[in-house]
């Protein structure tokens, strides 16, 4: 029954579509096109207003002075000059780079190593997978505020643990030397679950013959990781690297909730500075100028990401 319908459909398609009468075909195509745009209109409106228009507007805002009273006026590169002259500007970029670097060191290597270990375990797999992903499900504000309490220099959990080990307590968020690191620790804790599970899925697709062959050739554990595991998961490693750079360069919630950029601008990030300009100093132009700079930097990574994922699919 189904097969006959399918056959009928295919045969009809092959006769009427490419070789059918032209007028009927074009009228049909027109109707089809109209109904297609009927399906698309909701998305077109939403994208036009809340995606495409803001993108264009971002590019304009950076070169304008905007307020809600008068009209926007063109000010050329003034916003960029002003933002770049801010003493926090250089600090914000350095902090963001340092945060990204540290977050990669912990949050990129750690999930991969964890996934390799988890993949070897034959017991408690469901528990371990569940537990590592649990913090990812928490709203970031909850996780960050929880850690704010842990970082409390007095009765906070971390200093209590240090005391337990007879080590001196740290000032965590209040010291310029540990504040940024503290942000990296929360960020890693609440995000590493997704990386771990993605790597775990990738590791399960590595063919066992390759390990078998490598072992027959006398490759030890580390050499098997280097010559089989890593090359076989190369693509996903690259994709995750790019995604993680893009995500961590936009860090905002951690400095906003934990330190407010302090102490002494030690944790001001680019997005946090952008937030300050746009929503505290009422300078939408300054905020947009910072946003444009960040966009240019991140576009390199997102273009690479799109390229890699597209090539990977073929």
């Amino acid at each position, binding site marked *: 029954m189904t097969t006959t*319908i*399918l056959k009928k459909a*295919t045969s*009809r*398609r092959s006769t009427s579509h490419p070789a059918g009468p032209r007028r009927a075909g074009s009228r049909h195509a027109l109707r*089809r*096109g109209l109904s297609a745009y009927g*399906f*698309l209109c*909701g*998305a077109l409106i*939403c*994208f036009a207003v*809340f995606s*495409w*228009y*803001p*993108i264009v507007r*971002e590019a304009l*805002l950076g070169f304008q002075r905007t307020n809600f009273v008068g009209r926007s006026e063109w000010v050329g590169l003034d916003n960029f000059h002003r933002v770049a002259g801010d003493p926090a500007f250089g600090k914000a970029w350095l902090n963001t780079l340092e945060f990204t670097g540290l977050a990669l060191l912990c949050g990129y290597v750690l999930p991969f190593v964890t996934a*390799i*270990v988890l*993949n070897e*375990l*034959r017991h408690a797999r469901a*528990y*371990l*997978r569940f*537990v590592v*992903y649990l913090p990812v*499900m928490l*709203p*970031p*504000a*909850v996780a960050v*505020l*929880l850690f704010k*309490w842990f970082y409390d220099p*007095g009765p906070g959990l971390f200093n*209590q643990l240090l005391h337990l080990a007879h080590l001196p307590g740290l000032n965590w968020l209040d010291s310029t030397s540990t504040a940024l690191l503290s942000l990296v620790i929360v960020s890693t*804790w609440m995000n590493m679950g997704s990386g771990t*599970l*993605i790597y775990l899925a990738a590791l399960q697709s590595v063919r*066992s013959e390759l*390990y078998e062959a490598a072992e027959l050739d006398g490759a030890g*554990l580390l050499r098997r*990781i280097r010559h089989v595991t890593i090359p076989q998961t190369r693509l*996903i490693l690259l994709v995750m690297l790019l995604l993680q750079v893009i995500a961590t360069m936009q860090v905002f919630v951690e400095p906003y909730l934990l330190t407010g950029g302090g102490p002494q601008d030690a944790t001001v990030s680019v997005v946090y500075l*952008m937030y300050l300009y746009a*929503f505290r100093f009422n300078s939408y132009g300054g905020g*947009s100028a910072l*946003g444009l700079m*960040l966009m240019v930097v991140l*576009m390199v990574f*997102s*273009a690479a990401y*799109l390229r890699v994922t*597209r090539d*990977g*699919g073929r």
Partner: protein
Amino acid sequence: MTRTLISDRALNTPRGRVIYWTVLVTVIALFTAIFVFPLYWMATGAMKSSGELARTPPTLFPRHPHPGVYGDAWRRLYLGRFLLNTLEYAAGAWLLQLAVCVPAAYALSKLRPLLGRAVLGMMLATLMIPSTVLLVPLYLTVRDVPILHVNLLNTPFAIWLPAAANAFSVFLLKRFFDSIPGELLEAAAIDGASSWRILWSIVLPISRPIIAVVSIFAVVGVWKDFVWPLLVLPDGNKMTVSVAISSLSEQTPQNILIAALVIAGIPAVAVFLVFQRHIMAGLTAGGLKG
């Protein structure tokens, strides 16, 4: 039988077995300490009195547990209202996103109109722009929507409408629809079904797995979002639970704040317990295989 990095043969030697069990126990202990203990500390910390919270060394179990603190936090921080707000934003964003993205992806995949490829390209191009970069222009747009000149601040639409323009969902849905054989749909068309009918009765039932993935992304995305609701819902009655707790965190006693964090975390953990399999499947579906 598939093998991994280490073969079963190596694991079955006496030495392999010792190493395996040592590693297993260490990993379980470490994971529990790192990922579960903080949550235990939070849930029990809420039940300690302010005096006990400030004590050094801390107590592993609350001396005199005060479970009533949870009730205090619920009432004093109006958590019921804020949780309900968040639920409303998440549910609306989910429905609207499906209502907008599913027909769009269907049109781009199966009806293939003139300029369809260009439209898809423009949608996917938005994925290149980091989301935080658009905070300022999007905020200004929501504050004064072009043409209509309405202010959406402090309304649910400020969350719902931008969430509907989700290129990643369109991409995931379209890729799935592409894999549905065209013959199936054309057969229905010959039987006189309209395009809407085909989408509703044939495409949607087949597409349940991908719709589950997109739904989870939509709901979790709104639930976890912090910056956007912080900007567009500043009204003390309209806030999401995350924004409300963080804005009240300074003037709230420590144990009440911790209790509020526990309550705010429970829905997420509950959702995870129920939809664990879908969430983990979605993670890998969204990750790669483009």
